[in-house]
C-alpha cells in the first residue's frame, strides 16, 4: 500500500478530454422523455376518439332501433283498429250478404237442457240401443225377399286394340329465294303471267 502522497499523481491534460459513455444518453433523455409523453398523450387521445366514435355509432343505432320500435307499435295499433273494424256487425253482415251465407233466425227451442245420466244408466242405455239395433237387423233380414237366380252371360274376350301412330308426310315448303333489290326491271317468271315480280337492282 502506497501511503506516500504526491507520487505518481494523476496527470490531467487539458487538451484531451475523454467523454464518459453515459453522457450522450443523458443528453437524449429529455428528448426521449418528451417523445414518450407525446406518444402517451396521443395514444390517450386516440383511445378517446375511438370510444367516442363507437359511442356515437351505438347511439345512432339506438335511435334507429327506437324509431323502428315506434313504427312497429304504430303498425300494431293500426292492426288492432283493423280487427275492431272487421269484427263489427255491419262489416260481418256485409260479408254475409256478399257471399250469400244462409243464416236462419234463432229458434226458441234450439237450446234445451240435457239430463246428465249416471255411468250405470249410460251402460244400460247403450245395451238397450244395441239390442234394438240387433232386433231391427234381424227383422229386416227376415222380411227381405229371396234374391232372383242370376243368369250367367257369355262374355266375349276383350280385344286389345293397338293404336298405330300415322305420320302424314308433308311436303317441305318451297324455299323462297330473296332477290337483290338494285334496279327496277319487270320480269315474267317461266311463262306464268299472273306472277310478276319487280326486281330492284
Amino acid at each position, binding site marked *: 500500500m502506497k501511503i506516500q502522497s504526491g507520487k505518481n499523481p494523476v496527470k490531467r491534460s487539458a487538451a484531451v478530454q475523454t467523454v464518459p459513455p453515459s453522457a450522450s444518453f443523458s443528453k437524449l433523455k429529455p428528448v426521449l422523455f418528451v417523445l414518450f409523453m407525446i406518444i402517451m398523450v396521443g395514444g390517450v387521445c386516440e383511445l378517446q376518439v375511438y370510444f367516442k366514435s363507437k359511442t*356515437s355509432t351505438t347511439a345512432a343505432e339506438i335511435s334507429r332501433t327506437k324509431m323502428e320500435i315506434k313504427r312497429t307499435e304504430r*303498425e300494431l*295499433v293500426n292492426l288492432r283498429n283493423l280487427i275492431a273494424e272487421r269484427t*263489427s*256487425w255491419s262489416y260481418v253482415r256485409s260479408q254475409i250478404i256478399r257471399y250469400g251465407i244462409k243464416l236462419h*233466425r234463432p229458434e*226458441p*227451442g234450439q237450446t234445451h237442457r240435457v239430463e246428465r245420466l249416471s255411468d250405470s244408466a249410460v251402460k244400460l242405455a247403450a245395451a238397450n240401443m244395441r239390442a234394438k239395433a240387433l232386433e231391427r237387423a234381424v227383422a229386416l233380414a227376415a222380411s227381405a225377399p229371396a234374391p232372383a237366380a242370376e243368369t250367367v252371360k257369355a262374355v266375349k274376350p276383350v280385344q286389345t286394340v293397338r293404336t298405330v301412330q300415322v305420320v302424314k308426310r308433308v311436303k317441305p315448303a318451297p324455299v323462297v329465294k330473296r332477290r337483290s333489290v338494285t334496279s327496277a326491271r319487270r320480269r315474267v317468271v317461266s311463262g306464268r303471267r299472273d306472277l310478276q315480280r319487280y326486281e330492284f337492282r
Partner: protein
Amino acid sequence: MSSLTSSSVQTRIKFLIFLFGTPLIILLAIRYFYIQVVRHDYYLAEAQGKYTSTGKISGRRGEIFDNSGNLLVGNMPCVTIRCAPCNIKKNSDRRKIIDLVIKHFGKTHAWCRRNFAPQVWRANRKTGKLELRDNQYCQIVRYATLEQVDAFKGDLLRTFQTEKERREKRTTAKGMPRNVFQYDAVTKQIYPKGRLLSNILGYSNMADRDEIAPQEGIVREMNDEMAPVTGKEVYERDLAGRRLEYGHNEVVKQNRDGKNVYLTISEQIQSIVEDELDTVFAEWNPDTAYAIVADPKTGNILAIAQRPTFNPNDRKSYKPGAISTRIAMDVYEPGSIMKPFVVGKALDWKEITPETEFYCEKNNWFFGGHRLSDVRDYGTLTTTGVITKSSNIGTGKIAVQLGKERTYNVYKSFGFGTRTDLPLPSESLGVLRHYSKWPLVEITRVPIGYAMSATLLQVTRAYCALANNGNMPQLRLIDRIEDISTGEVTVMPYAPQKQMFERQEALDQLVDMMVTVTSPGGIATRAAVPGYKVAGKTGTSRKNYGRDKWNKEYFTSFAGFVPAKDPKFVMAIMVDTPRGSHPGGGTVAAPVFARSAERILKYLNVPADPELLPKKKRR
C-alpha cells in the same frame, strides 16, 4: 469575472421572471377561478343552450271500450305530410311529384298548381305590398294512413331511382330532391264500429295539430280523464339536431297517458238493437226512434240507440238532427206506459185487488169538465183487465181513488221529473208538475201518460224497479276507468237501490197483469216471444200542438222485461210519428221488442220454457 456576470445575469433574469411572471400567473389564476367557479352556472347554461334542446313528450289519448273490451273509440296513428316546394329545383321533378300526389292523395291539378308553385305572392307585413317569395310550406295531407304513406314513399323512390339503384335495391335515390318532404307522426280519433253507439259516444273536432276538441257525448263528458298530459324534457343533441342517447337527459315535466273508459254497453246487444231500429225506421218512416236495454239488477245500460244517426268517421253524415244525444234531450208524453205504476202502488197500499171491478162508462166518461175515452166500449173491467186492455177510464178511476197527492208521489218516487245523472250532455228533466198546480182533470191524465213528459231513460229506470223486485237501481253507463301507466282500475260505484214496494205480493200481482198484456187477449200480443213470458206495456200518445189542436201524429212506445220471473233485461222503445196504417204501441214498438228480445235472449243463452213453446218447435 465572467462567472460573476453570468451568475448576475441569471439572477436578474430570475428576478425579472419572478417580478412579471408571478403577477401574471396570479392574474390568470384569478381569472380561471372567476370563470370556472364564480360564473360557472352562467357559462354552463350558455354552453348547454348550444347543445341541448327542449322537447315535448306527448301522451296517448285514452280510448273507449265496451264492457268486454271491444274497442269503440280508438286512436289511429297517421302521418301529416308537409312539403317545401321551393326546394324542388327542376320542373320535371315537380311534375313527377305532382303526379304522385294526385295518384295517392286524390288532389286536383288546380290544387297542385296552386300549392306546388315555387314562388307565391305574399303581402309584406310592414308595408302591406305584395311580394314574390319562395313557397316554403304546403300541407299535402293531414291524416294519411301508414299504408298510404308507405305506398307514396315507395312510388317516390321508384320514380327518382336510376336503373342501377333499383337493381342494387338501394333505399335512397341520388336524383331525389332534398329537403322537400316532412313526415310528422300524428294520431287521429277513430270509431272502428262506424255508426254503432255514435250518438252516445259523440264526436270531436281537431284543433291545432294533434289537439282534439270533443264536442258531444261521452268523449266530451269524460275528456278530463281521457285527455293526455304533455310533458317536457331537456336533452343533448349533436350539430345536426339528433338526440344524443348517452348525453344528459332530464325530464322537466312528466307526461301522462289518458285513461281508458269502459262502458257497460255490450257491443253485440247494441248491434242487435240498432239492427231492429233500422228495420222499424225503414218500415214506418218515423221522425225518430229510440231504444234502451238495461240490466234491472245492476242498472247497467246494455244498449242505447237512436235513429237518425251518423257515422263519426264520415263528416258528410253530420246532419243537424242526427249528431246530438237526443235520447237524453228529447222528452215525450209516454202514454199508457205509465199505467202500471199507479196500479202497482194502489195494489201495494191495498186500495184495490186484482179482482176489483171498475165500470168503464162504455167509452164515455166525463171528469173535471173533460171527456175521457178508451179504445173500445168496455163495460166492467177488473184491475187485471184495466192493464190487459189498457183502459184509460179504469186507470183514471184508480187514480181518483188514490187522490192527487198520492198519485203525484207515485210518479215522483219512480224518478219522473228527475235526471238519471248519466254522463250525457244536456239530459232533460222532463215535466211533472206539483199536484198543487193540477187542475181537477189532471189526476186522470197523468196516470195515462198525458200532462207530463219524460225521457226514455226515466221510463227505463222506472221499469227496472218493476223488474228488480221493486228495487230501483241507478242507471250506469260507465263501468270502470283504467289508468294504463299505473294499471289502476277504478270501478264506478253502484248507488244504493231504493225499494219501491212495501209488499212483494203486490209487485207479483202487477207483473202477472203485465204478462197478460202480451198474452193472447192482450193488446200487445206482437211483443210476445215464443218460449218466454214477457211482462210489458204499450203506450200510444197523440201529439198536441196547442190548445185543442190534436194532430194525427203519435208517440208509440213499448216497455217490458223478459222473462217475467227473474228478468234478464228491461227494454224500452219509442218511435216518434210512425207513418203507416194503424200506428200504435202494439203495432209499431211491440214487434221491435219481440224481435230484439228473441235475439238478445239467444245471445245471453237464456233457455226457453218448453211448456211455452209452440208444439211444432218442441224438441
